[in-house]
C-alpha cells in the first residue's frame, strides 16, 4: 500500500463523513485497484451526493472498468452540479471522441481547454480531435456520402436540479440559465410553492398523494417531485425534452434527494 493511500485511508477512518474518500478513491484507481476504488467512492456518494468532484472520480473509475454508460452518467452529473467542471468536460470529450462523435468531443474539449489553458492533456486531446475532424472532412469530400449509420440517440441533458425546502430555500443543487447565471434561488422560491397548491387540489379531488408535477414551458421543461421533510426536488431541462426521458431525470433526481436527506438530515 502506498503512503498516499495509507494516509488517506487513515483520514477517512478517523472521519468517515469527510471528503477524504474522493482523493482516496482516485489514488486507488491510479494504483490499479478500480474495484476497491468504486466501492469507496459509491459509499462516499451516499453521504455527499452533490459533490461534483466525487462524481468525477466515480466516472473515472467506471471508465477504467470500461463501463462507459455509468461513466457518462457520472460526468453528466458532475457537470450539472458544477457548470464548467473541467474533469467532467474532459471526460465527456473523451467519451464522445471514443464513440466517434467528434463534433461533441471538440465542443467539450474546447470548453475544458478554455477553462484550463495550461492542461497539456486537454490540449493534446483537442488537437487529436481536430486532426480527426479534418481527416473526416477530407474523406467526406473525396467520397460520396454513405447512408446514415447513426447508432446512438441524441439526448438532451437536464439544465440542472435543486432540492428546495418547505420555505423555498435551496438545500442542494444548482440551476443556471442560458447565459450561465445562477438562477437557483429565484426558481426554487417561485416553483416550490406550487407543491402546496397541488396537494390541496389532489386532496379535494380524492387522488391521494402527489408523485410528480411537470410543466412544459416556453424556455424549459420543469418537473417537481416530493422529497422528505416537505421539501421538493426540482429538475429543469431544455424545452421539448422527450416526456419519458424527462420523467427518468425526475425519478433519478428524487433518488438523489432521498440519499441527500438520509446523509444530512
Amino acid at each position, binding site marked *: 500500500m502506498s503512503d498516499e493511500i495509507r494516509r488517506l485511508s487513515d483520514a477517512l477512518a478517523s472521519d468517515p463523513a469527510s471528503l477524504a474518500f474522493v482523493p482516496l478513491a482516485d489514488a486507488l484507481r491510479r494504483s490499479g485497484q478500480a474495484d476497491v476504488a468504486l466501492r469507496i467512492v459509491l459509499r462516499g456518494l451516499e453521504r455527499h451526493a452533490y459533490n461534483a468532484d466525487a462524481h468525477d472520480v466515480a466516472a473515472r473509475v467506471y471508465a477504467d472498468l470500461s463501463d462507459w454508460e455509468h461513466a457518462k452518467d457520472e460526468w453528466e452529473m458532475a457537470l450539472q452540479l458544477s457548470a464548467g467542471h473541467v474533469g467532467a468536460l474532459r471526460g465527456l470529450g473523451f467519451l464522445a471522441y471514443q464513440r466517434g462523435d467528434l463534433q461533441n468531443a471538440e465542443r467539450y474539449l474546447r470548453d475544458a481547454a478554455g477553462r484550463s489553458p495550461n492542461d497539456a492533456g486537454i490540449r493534446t486531446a483537442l488537437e487529436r480531435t481536430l486532426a480527426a475532424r479534418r481527416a473526416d472532412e477530407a474523406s467526406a469530400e473525396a467520397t460520396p456520402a454513405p447512408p446514415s449509420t447513426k447508432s446512438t440517440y441524441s439526448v438532451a441533458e437536464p439544465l440542472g436540479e435543486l432540492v428546495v425546502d418547505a420555505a423555498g430555500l435551496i438545500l442542494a443543487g444548482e440551476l443556471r*440559465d442560458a447565459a450561465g447565471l445562477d*438562477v437557483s434561488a*429565484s*426558481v426554487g422560491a*417561485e*416553483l416550490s*410553492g*406550487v407543491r402546496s*397548491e*397541488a396537494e*390541496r*387540489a*389532489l386532496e*379535494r*379531488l*380524492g*387522488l*391521494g*398523494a*402527489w*408523485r*410528480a*408535477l*411537470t*410543466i*412544459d*414551458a*416556453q*424556455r*424549459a421543461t*420543469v418537473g417537481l417531485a416530493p422529497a422528505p421533510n416537505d421539501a421538493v426536488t426540482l429538475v*429543469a431541462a431544455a424545452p421539448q425534452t422527450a*416526456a*419519458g426521458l424527462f420523467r427518468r431525470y425526475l425519478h433519478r433526481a428524487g433518488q438523489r434527494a432521498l440519499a441527500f436527506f438520509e446523509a444530512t438530515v
Partner: protein
Amino acid sequence: MIALEAVLEPVARTKGVRAVILAAEDDGVPVHAVAHQDVDADTLAALGCRLYRSARLASERAGFGSSSIMHVEAEHGQVCVAGVRDAKTPGALVVIALAESDANTGALRLALARAANQARDAA
C-alpha cells in the same frame, strides 16, 4: 368551425380518461365537459384551473416563460391541463383531463395537446 363537443370527444375516448373539461382559466367555470357520473366536473374545473394558473405564473416569474401543458401524477390518478390560448389574453381557456393513474400518459398528453389546438380554432 369544429364544435367544442367534437374537440373534447377524442380525449374522452382515450383509455383511462374519466373527465375532460374546457374551462375559463381565470374563474375556473366549465364551458363544456364530458365526464363520468362520479366526477364533479365543477370542482375539477375550478381546482384544475387554479393549479394550472399557479404553475403558469410561477413558471413565468421563474423565467421559464408561459406553460403549454401541466401534468400532475398522483397516487390514485393524474390530472393534465393544456392552455388553449395565450394565457395573458382575456378569456383564456384551458382543457383539463382527469385520468386513472395507470392510463397511458403519452396518449393522454397527445390527445390533450391536439384538443387544445383544435379548441383554439373553434373558440
